[in-house]
């Protein structure tokens, strides 16, 4: 019945959505920020620990759908070890991929399973919300962000 949804809900998304690897508040962290999707009430709070100018650890607390949780979790995998500038570039590429469905940015390899959201405009935000929160954390925003676009 839902064959065609497999492009959106790939196995890794269902898995990570159900049992994320990084779904916890860090014990010690240097920055945190939350992202809200006011349309649906979803919220992701990101905690990060930096060292040597690089993100060493990232955890998150999320209330949200499989897409947003999986996206947060894959994001954590992807950004650990990277500098804020690298992460900002990655975030930009990612948002672009979520909207268009394609990307030639090699850095996004492990994030590619999320490209399927582009077919479901209202779900694009689910995938990009954790990235918005992460950027706010990097920018030191206290209040966090509400994505409404």
């Amino acid at each position, binding site marked *: 019945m*839902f064959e065609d949804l497999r492009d959106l*809900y790939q196995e890794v998304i*269902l898995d990570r959505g159900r049992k994320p690897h990084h779904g916890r508040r860090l014990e010690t962290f240097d920055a945190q920020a939350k992202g809200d999707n006011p349309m*649906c009430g*979803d919220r992701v709070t990101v905690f990060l620990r930096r060292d040597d100018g690089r993100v060493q650890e990232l955890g998150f607390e999320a209330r*949200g759908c*499989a*897409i947003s949780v999986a996206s947060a979790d894959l994001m954590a995998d992807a950004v650990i070890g990277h500098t804020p500038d690298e992460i900002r570039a990655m975030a930009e590429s990612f948002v672009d991929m979520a909207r268009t469905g394609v990307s030639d940015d090699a850095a996004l390899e492990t994030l590619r399973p999320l490209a399927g959201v582009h077919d479901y405009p209202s*779900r694009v935000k689910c995938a990009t919300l954790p990235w918005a929160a992460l950027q706010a954390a990097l920018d030191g925003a206290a209040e966090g962000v509400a994505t409404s676009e």
Partner: protein
Amino acid sequence: MNAISQLGFDVTRIRRDFPILSEKIRGKDLVFLDSGASAQKPVVVMEAMLHAMQHQYANVHRGLHWMSERTTEAYEETRDSIARLLNAADRSEIVFTHNSTEAFNLVAHSFGRGVLKPGQAVVVSEMEHHANLVPWQMLRDAHGVELRIAPITDAGELDMAGLESLLGDGKVGLVSITHMSNVLGTYTPAERIVKLAHAYGAKVMLDGSQAVVHRAVDVQALDVDFYTFTGHKLYGPTGIGALYGKRELLDSMPPFMGGGDMIGSVTYQKSTWAETPHKFEAGTPAILEGIGLNAAIKYVEAIGYPAIAAHETALTEHALARLSSIDGVNLFGRAQDRGGVISFTLDGAHAHDVATLLDRQGIAVRAGHHCAEPLMHRLGVQSTARASFGVYTTLEEIDALADTLVRVREFFQ
């Protein structure tokens, strides 16, 4: 008994009035179960708006020429229709707004700042749409009016004892409560609320955005002070809604917005206001939308509220029976008196994911907080999925929802 006669009227015939219902979504038949967010439009509404644009249109209230006079008549006839629909004592008690949200903001501004005094209080309930919460918060923060929250029971009904205890100190100037919850489907006991509030000297505003779609409303029998609904949920166009207010209350309130059409006379020093209801209607109104709404109201009246209510009851009972028999489906709200709006969650799947999978099969439901975040907290969830019904909804569509939900559960297991 077959499905159609069970519904109390000929739903097949009604569906022919809504051309959009034969659309395909990703190759599947559209099953539109999101009428609570906004209803589809019957052909008569389209025709009324089209006719105006093709044959009879000009700005209203201002022109002395034929087109303007005729357009004014057509537009103002809608005020009569709304007065009839709500059984208002007088047409001047009907204020055109752009939707219910504007009606709440109007009352929060004009009654809230103009009549209520700092130190008085406004009561809303735990199951309000943001439209009936945020304007009062803004009033509280700007004008020093206290905001009190009337509790609901675990069944999702208004806790009348809780409401009464909020009224005890006599400070409450206004009780503003939904007439039907857009999340739980609960009808509130409007008559009892009004009696109780009046006994403590408080005025009452009812949010009829959902209620008026399903049941006859009689503002005089209810003795309610303000009542609002929004056209697009009543099969009318967007951009038009109405506020009913008792004449002497409206007369006592300052205007909300300033501009053309709401003035008596204007000088730089001082302007005076037009009579009720015009003093609340600044600027060029939603003329075409008013004309469309009139057609929608007549359409609803032609079907008749008894038939609509019977249809809604049949659908709701069927849906509650079908959905509650599915493992892992949780239903919210068990009010005695409830209408065709059903919120649910599915164990192991977020409401958004459920909605996306349903959509893949052509089934449109809403998922999220339904503009009622505090109610979500009260229910202990972040969001729910919601199916809501219209005059064109069939039992078969509810079956499609139930059957597909079983598969959704399997998908996420």
